[in-house]
């Protein structure tokens, strides 16, 4: 089985937000929820960088660990998913997530956040694959159809890579060797506890 990861090559990200739009469209994500976002560091200054970020599907995921009702589960492809039927909307996963991935449909006063929503790596949820119930709650199940997440597939500069960790790391390494410098593989050290050695 593959170990699915995301890698954003910040050297290539042009902050077009196509990944954000592709995700919203593919998964019919409700208003106010962004499973993926693009953050620009040092905006307008020399050396600015834009990074596309969503759930990184961490190794030993903190969200899954802190969930007081244990609603998370990890698929055979190491994708971190959760059950909206079991989620109580306590908001703890947002406090633990290093990447701000968990989203809630409401502001959340008096504990009324609603069921948590996050990037599923386009792998649906615990419901039967490709069922309407799965789509309504979690969005597309592209992985089940043998396709990669829509955000990475749509990326115009191929900055955002999705796929087996070893494969995308190899693609990134080749880029780094060709252009002569890296862009850091943002989030990898926090999410997967590893650096890509070039």
């Amino acid at each position, binding site marked *: 089985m593959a170990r699915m990861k995301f890698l954003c090559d910040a050297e290539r990200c042009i902050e077009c937000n196509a990944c954000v739009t592709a995700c919203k469209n593919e998964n019919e994500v409700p208003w106010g929820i*962004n499973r993926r976002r693009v953050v620009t560091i040092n905006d307008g200054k020399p050396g600015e960088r834009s990074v596309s970020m969503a759930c990184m599907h961490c190794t030993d995921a903190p969200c899954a660990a802190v969930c007081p009702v244990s609603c998370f589960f990890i698929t055979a492809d190491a994708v971190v998913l959760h059950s909206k039927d079991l989620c109580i909307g306590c908001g703890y996963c947002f406090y633990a997530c290093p990447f701000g991935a968990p989203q809630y449909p409401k502001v959340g006063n008096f504990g009324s956040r609603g069921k948590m929503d996050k990037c599923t790596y386009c792998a649906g949820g615990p419901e039967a694959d490709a069922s309407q119930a799965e789509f309504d709650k979690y969005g597309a199940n592209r992985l089940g159809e043998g396709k990669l997440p829509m955000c990475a597939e749509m990326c115009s500069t191929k900055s955002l890579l999705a796929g087996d960790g070893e494969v995308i790391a190899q693609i990134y390494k080749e880029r780094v060797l060709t252009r002569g410098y890296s862009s850091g593989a943002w989030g990898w050290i926090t999410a997967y506890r590893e650096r890509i050695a070039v």
Partner: protein
Amino acid sequence: MAPRQAAYRLLFALLTAGGFLALAFTAARAQQDRIIDPDASVVNEQKLLQESERITGRIGLPDERAATLIQPAGRTWRYFHEVLLRWIGSIVIIATVLGLALAYSLIGRLRMSEGRSGTKVARFSAFERFAHWLTATSFVLLALTGLNVTFGKILLRPLIGPEAFTTLSESAKYVHNFISFPFVLGLILIAATWMRDNIPRKVDIEWLKQGGGFIKGRHPTAGRFNAGEKLVFWLALVAGAAVAISGYLLMFPFYGTNILGMQAAQVVHSIIAMLFIALIIGHIYIGTLGTEGAFEAMGTGSVDFNWAKEHHALWLKDEIAKGHVPKPPPRASASPAE
């Protein structure tokens, strides 16, 4: 044509030399280009993380929270929530229960040395009891629903199954949030009614020196509240204020707080709540099982004359002086404060 040939030769030599020069120049420039690292001035994740716990940038979304790109502190908070808090909570609560069990087995129940007199002295008014029981009921509900967040998935979830546990935990979450209001109201009422009688006095030092009521045969004198009760009063007030403030920060997420503020609020809330629970377990023990005749003060509102004489002699003296104790009981001496 010799001169022409010579001219061609010269031109060829010049061109060659020029070509070599140009090549050398390009090579030198290429060398220079390679020395300049186009990435050198660019923001670097590792450097940013060394400078700060969080990397924040600009984002096109209206949601400010989304501007935080990476916060590795989330993993630190996870360690607190999943490891430290469980240890702190279980040690504090189990140690308290064991300590009380030991106290009970060694000292047993503190009986009234002269037995019951049969005469009742009014101790707490209906309003005071209402304030106490409002706070007490709310506290028990808050404690149980709060403990469920920390220990429920280990202790309860395997017993009742994921679905039932989710239903229970979701209701518990709302109970916890809304019962906080009567709890805070109760605290305010308690503070307003009892603050005056809980101001520390000289007699409290003597009470503490004599070991409170825990040493048999000794009954250090006290006013309306003894030093132990005063301690519970002030600790409950401080802990109550701390859990209320941190709790409302959690209940209104990200109003004036960022992710660090929310994590800190949860840390403060949970640690103080665990200590508070241990304190109240002790309070419940002393007020029920630990001391004969103590519970009726909060139950019916009045205590036995002999109980008042043993535990709150100065208060009883005042009550008699005020004429609140209608007729002196037959077995009581004229001066109850020994």
